[in-house]
């Protein structure tokens, strides 16, 4: 009996495969299951190819797993555009619309598929007087074949279309029923069984929504951004919600204005953030350097996409790492942190604002399209605990000796806010002394560089430890970051079950790197594999510049757009072990 089910759906934009996927996830969540769904789109604005990959499980899952158990193909043309991304398991079941007879030949790895079930998807939709309802027919077929709860699916359909009126709801339910009935009487049922367990309060949410909600809960009340795929949902969500919480979202004229408005608001004492993707982060770099020099707290979220340049806006990659760490000119202390999955978005936003406010510096939080556009069922986070870290504001009293950039032990100086009488100062991107007066003296520059850099040492020493899964001092060590964490974590579970002393370390704080924790993790390592989605292996090279690696250190890397599968990581480890 399977402990999880992996379902894929592929079609044209108008086929509604992503909507169908959403409905499955919402319905199964209300049945107490965990789920993860990845949406993937072509570049077209409307009507292009789109796909959804769903993994359902009774336990929390950390990746999309391996190949699909079932794939619904609305038409073969769209399938071919995703062929490299929609690998099938042996014995997978393909459900295809019998109307499309352009099935590709055996060269497309379809030979190992156990069965191809041809279903009159289009004609069932048409006969239920809902030609646009092919996706509803498919939901009915899946429910009939696999025994997915009919009631939960119908209720999710009703919720989804409620705002369109009763007519639309009943039309779609009729199409669902047509598919369900067809499957019951024409397709032999498949034996899949999943048990719901540990029912508690859950959320169904995407990574971008979780970032936005996490920021709101962390106290963010000012957001300025510029639309960019795949980050725009953060801005859209905050644009709707911030005004409800006495906050403001400003759509800026470009990313430079977005980061500068964010800096201006934070200078005024309000927790402020912007979000973007790689091209926008490039535009923001000079201003992030300003926030570092002028010591202004701010949070910049980068939902990475395929690059460079326009690259592949709709698909994921982890190749903004070097830009986030080294993109600024000069020595510009700042922090870089990363989310691992949708659930960690909440904690990471709390960390981002805490570091920004406490250390008065910019924090770049790295996510990627794979997390941003992914829907997960997660355990309800405790939103009340996400606002952390206070800005060090001078107390009223003696103002004559006030030094905004006072050279203190941990590098953090008292930061006044406009409106505080007697604490006025000049905030500047030009090098300045402790009072804020401009200076081009080497002595002052050296001293202030050291002051600002000490904040990083303090942060490095005080931030929470790196996450380690599997063995804590393994012989077979893996290191990864961001959206590959879940994949590698599951790979390590499999390696351990094969009797291999394996473990994976995942940093949340990417910069400054917690070097000693990695060195401890690698103490007994005979072999190291670093896994990432960067063609040039940015993370491997970055780690290598900071930590001593075992002689057998390997980089498992590929460009973005295609996510590693758990079995690929397992077989790579087994290969290098030989």
């Amino acid at each position, binding site marked *: 009996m399977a402990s999880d089910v992996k379902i894929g759906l592929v079609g044209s934009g108008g086929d509604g495969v992503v909507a169908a996927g959403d409905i499955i996830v919402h319905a199964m969540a209300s*049945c107490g299951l965990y789920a993860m769904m990845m949406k993937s789109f072509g570049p077209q604005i409307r009507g292009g190819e789109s796909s959804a990959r769903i993994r359902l499980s009774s336990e929390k899952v950390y990746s999309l797993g391996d190949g699909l158990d079932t794939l619904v193909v609305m038409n073969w043309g769209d399938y071919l555009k995703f062929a490299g991304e929609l690998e099938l398991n042996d014995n997978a079941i393909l459900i295809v619309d019998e109307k499309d007879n352009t099935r590709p030949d055996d060269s497309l790895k379809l030979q190992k598929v156990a069965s191809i079930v041809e279903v009159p998807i289009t004609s069932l939709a048409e006969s239920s007087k809902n030609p646009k309802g092919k996706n509803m027919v498919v939901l009915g077929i899946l429910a009939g074949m696999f025994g997915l709860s009919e009631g939960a699916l119908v209720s999710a359909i009703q919720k989804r279309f409620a705002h369109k009126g009763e007519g639309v709801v009943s039309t779609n339910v009729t199409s669902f029923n047509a598919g369900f009935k067809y499957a019951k009487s024409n397709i032999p049922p498949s034996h899949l069984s999943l048990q719901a367990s540990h*029912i508690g309060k859950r959320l169904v949410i995407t990574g971008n929504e979780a970032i936005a909600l996490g920021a709101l809960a962390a106290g963010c009340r000012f957001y300025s951004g510029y639309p960019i795929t795949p980050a725009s949902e953060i801005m859209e969500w905050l644009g709707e919600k911030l005004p409800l919480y006495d906050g403001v979202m400003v759509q800026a004229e470009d990313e430079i*204005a977005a980061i500068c408005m964010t800096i201006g608001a934070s200078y005024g004492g309000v927790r402020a953030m912007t979000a973007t993707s790689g091209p926008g982060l490039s535009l923001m770099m000079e201003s992030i350097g300003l926030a570092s020099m002028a010591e202004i707290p701010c949070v910049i979220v980068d939902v990475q996409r395929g690059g460079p340049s326009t690259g592949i806006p709709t698909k994921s990659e982890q190749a903004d790492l070097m830009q986030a760490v080294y993109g600024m000119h000069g020595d510009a202390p700042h922090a870089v942190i990363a989310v691992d999955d949708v659930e960690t978005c909440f904690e990471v936003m709390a960390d981002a604002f805490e570091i920004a406010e406490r250390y008065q510096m910019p924090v770049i939080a790295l996510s990627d399209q794979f997390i941003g556009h992914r829907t997960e069922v997660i355990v309800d986070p405790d939103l009340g605990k996400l606002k952390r870290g206070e800005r060090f504001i001078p107390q009223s009293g003696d103002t004559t000796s006030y030094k905004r950039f006072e050279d203190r032990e941990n590098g953090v100086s008292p930061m006044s806010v406009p409106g505080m009488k007697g604490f006025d100062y000049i905030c500047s991107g030009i090098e300045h002394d402790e009072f804020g007066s401009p200076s081009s003296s080497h002595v002052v520059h050296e001293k202030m560089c050291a002051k600002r850099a000490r904040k990083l040492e303090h942060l490095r020493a005080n931030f929470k430890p790196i996450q380690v899964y599997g063995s804590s001092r393994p012989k077979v060590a893996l290191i990864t970051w961001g959206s590959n964490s879940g994949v590698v974590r599951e790979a390590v579970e499999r390696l351990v079950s094969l009797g291999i002393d394996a473990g994976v370390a995942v940093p949340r704080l990417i910069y400054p790197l917690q070097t000693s924790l990695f060195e401890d993790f690698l103490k007994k390592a005979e072999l190291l594999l670093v896994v990432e989605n960067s063609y040039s292996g940015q993370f491997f090279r970055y780690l290598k510049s900071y930590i001593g690696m075992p002689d057998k250190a390997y980089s498992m890397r590929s460009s973005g757009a295609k996510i590693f599968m758990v079995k690929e990581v397992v077989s790579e480890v087994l290969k290098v072990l030989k």
Partner: protein
Amino acid sequence: MIMNNLKAKDYISSLKPIWCPGCGDYGVLNAIAMAFEELSIPPEKIAVISGIGCSSRLPGYLNTYGFNSIHGRALPIACGLKIARDDLTVIAVGGDGDGFSIGGGHLSHAIRRNVDISYFIMDNQIYGLTKGQASPTTPFGDVTSTTSYGNIDTPIWPISFTLGYGATFVAQSTPLDIKHLATMMVEAIKHPGFAFVNIISPCVTYRGKEMYQYIRDRMYYIDKEEGYDPKDLQAAWRFANDRERIPLGVFYKKEADTYRDRIDRVKEKLGSKKMDIEMEKLAFVPDTGGLGEKDVFIPG
């Protein structure tokens, strides 16, 4: 406005300006301080935001909150601050290169949002801090260190530029008449919405001492002219199109909703307040009611 009996000199800090002797910006600094005295604004309630350039050093010479940022970005920083902190008097200052070249893209957007800030551009027709390169307002044909054979770019005309984008307050003045300049600044700060003042400020080092005479010969006050009406956009355009002489005064002034008014209207409609963050209102929380531990819901 709270009376605080501060004099203009009280708003000026002890820091010695880096400006050349004879620079027009000294007069601009004095005029700003005179405007603050006139308006009796508490210094801690003022934030002066600048970019980079000779004139962008100005915030450092005031006893107010100040922000000397990066080249071209005074406006978005000032807008972000004002949107977040409506209680402050926020003024952006800078030069013609900062405002019309590298930062030129921000000006139209600050104008269309009508953020309630003032923007004072010290227009000296040259890049002074980097020692004499052509700026976006350098006259056509002028020889500078980057236009060896004469400037082949048509200069931007700041008044037409801002009128064209629909600014709700457009004025021009010069430190050659400090009282007039201070009056323009007072009007601008009092104006609810985005207020633009172009200040013809001589650069003696790279434009020569004769720039003073050039301005003096051509300046005139538009409020003394026939047909002057700051509420009349057509009249404003007539003066703006005078490129032979230098018209001074308020070209145009219009009452309009500020960005804050627009935000407040949305918030009022929503009943915005500092509410508790409740998950049910913010995300999809599946109803798992009726399900117990280990319920089997998918038949094997």
